């Protein structure tokens, strides 16, 4: 373990609304290590999204210290911060945020545009990435020609095409039905395990959160609990065995992307076939157990 991917020390975020200060975050400290899988839970309005925006350098803290990829955010200019985002962070949003009139492959290639990569190489890398999320057959579809699950997969491919250190997913399944959401979730988990990108995911679902190696509970702008401090990881520090910074060219098949698999998935079949087994994964039946009113928010 070298430098942490992101480090926040006593971070505050205060908004001024009509002269009244509202603190969305009130002194948050946490460290995201390379390759981690972290679930962030907490009721609505507790500051989860604000935290994600800060961890991704999309926003600046009002107080405290925030270091992303070894660089102190407060010392960076707006263009420098943009470049840092481009190089180290991938965002996945609840609302997908794809460019409507742009094909899947060009949507995925967008971050490379701002990195100055030539058009041809961009397309190649975007197409390869789409292949990894199981959309190799949807390169030239536009968002409105794709299902919700497929759109979110495109967004995930876009987040990962730059080979970032951290993937920040803010309720990535919030706009999807449960089966499709499950498939997207499995994809995220698999990419985390395979490529070594740290995955920080906001979720309302306790069950989903339970699958993460580390859970952070946020309430009223404060971290109420962080499982990293409750019990030190016993399974080899929670870092996946393979740290693979560049997406390899070899077709390492992705869950639910095999031929004949229905796009977006329907029913519980998504990801049930052709999936690589992952250490620490819970049996499927258990995942689908009815929830018992533990829904946050």
């Amino acid at each position, binding site marked *: 373990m070298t430098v942490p991917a992101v480090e926040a020390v006593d971070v505050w975020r205060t908004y001024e609304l009509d002269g009244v200060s509202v603190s969305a975050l009130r002194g948050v400290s946490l460290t995201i290590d390379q390759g981690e899988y972290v679930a962030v839970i907490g009721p609505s309005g507790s500051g989860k999204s604000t935290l994600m*925006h800060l961890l*991704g350098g*999309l*926003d600046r803290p009002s107080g405290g210290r925030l270091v992303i990829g070894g660089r102190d955010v407060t010392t960076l200019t*707006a*263009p420098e911060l*943009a*470049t840092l*985002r*481009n*190089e180290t962070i991938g*965002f996945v*949003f609840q609302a997908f*945020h794809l*460019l409507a*009139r742009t094909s899947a492959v060009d949507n995925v290639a*967008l*971050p490379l*545009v*701002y*990195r*100055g990569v030539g*058009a041809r190489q961009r397309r190649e890398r975007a197409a390869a990435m789409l292949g990894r999320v199981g959309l190799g057959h949807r390169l030239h579809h536009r968002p409105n020609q794709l299902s919700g699950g497929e759109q979110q997969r495109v967004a995930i491919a*876009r987040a990962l095409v*730059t080979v970032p250190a951290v993937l920040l997913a803010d309720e990535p399944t919030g706009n999807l039905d449960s089966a499709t959401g499950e498939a997207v979730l499995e994809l995220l988990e698999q990419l985390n395990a395979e490529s070594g990108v740290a995955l920080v995911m906001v979720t309302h679902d306790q069950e989903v959160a339970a699958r993460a190696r580390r859970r952070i509970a946020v309430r009223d702008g404060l971290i109420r609990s962080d499982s990293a401090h409750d019990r030190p990881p016993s399974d080899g520090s929670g870092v996946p065995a393979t740290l693979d910074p560049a997406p390899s060219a070899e077709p390492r098949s992705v869950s639910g992307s095999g031929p004949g698999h229905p796009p977006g998935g329907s029913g519980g079949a998504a990801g049930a076939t052709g999936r690589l087994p992952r250490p620490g994964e819970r049996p499927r039946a258990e995942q689908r157990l009815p929830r018992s009113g533990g829904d946050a928010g």
Partner: protein
Amino acid sequence: MRLAEAWRVAWDALRANRLRSVLTMLGVIIGVASVVILVAIGTGTKQQVEQQVEGLGSNLLLVVPGRIEVGNAPVVSPLDLSDADAVSRVVGDPGRVAVTVASGATARAGNRSDFTTVQGVLETTPSVFTRSLSRGRYLTGADVDTSRRVAVLGDSVARALFPDRDPLGQQVTLAGVRFRVIGVFAPLGQSLGVDRDDEVHVPVTAAQRLWGTQRIDGIAVKAPDRERIDELGERIVAELSRRHPDTEFSAVTQRQILGVLGDILGVLTGVLAAIAGISLLVGGVGVSNIMLVSVRERTREIGLRKAVGARPRDIGVQFLLEAVLLTSVGGLTGMALGVGTALLVDALSPIPAAITWWSLALAFGVSAAVGIVFGVVPAQRAGRLDPVVALRAE
């Protein structure tokens, strides 16, 4: 982001909203086209008039009572033929002096009639003003001396009165008096919308008898020495002032006429261009407006682009290029439309139009500049958007 990439993004954005882009461009198209057309007409008219004045010869001197200035009322002439003789003595060659006494009159031949200008002149007129005949002969000294009722018709008058006959030897009635046609002028064309072939020349003596006057309106001199034309003018004015102490006289050269006309037509062209420029400005405001709408509509897109690494400048440049592209494509289209219309006007109507490169360059430059000027505010607004707020926009 590479600039070529930014151009492509801007172009795609405009194409995605084709109708709106075209409507926005329309303002610029109309503005640029009207600049090009109006400047072409102004320039064409100026060139035509200058050509005609130059056709008079650079050693022509026009002597008239009163001052030649814009806005001065004409003065009743005190001149008569003895003054013309006096001027001839100053010049030293009667063959270089021409006179005119002119009035509107109805010319009749058979059952046809034409209202025209009858000019009483000396036999020297064709050499002083460089006029040529298409047929027959001009007036002679004997015609003038004996007040002979003979007439030389302008081309238009000849066509109007004798559409299917040879006018030579025919009778025309001018203000009720019969004249015999001895010649027809070669056509001159139009000047500032005035038909220069709508005139009839008769001996000055016959014209004076026709209208019961001894007066002449003015004297024209073809100076023997171009270098000393101003000095000759002064001497003529001095002589006439001596003979008519109560009247002011002016001697104007072609150069002065060109100067005055050039000033008038230059101002006219400028005013036309300015009016057209205002419509270009209005087009620019339209571009600004649409760009602001576009920034608002695409707030989430801006937020997303920033999230994946677009710098404020990348976003600003993208929107600025979009505005510049709108106005430049509009400008090019307007130029094509303007040039086409101007060429049509020149070919199909009596209004002359001349395309000048400077007006095209100006119109295009201004339209591109309009894009920059009116695109900067929306572009800056886009570049400065807070990505978090932008991503949350509806």
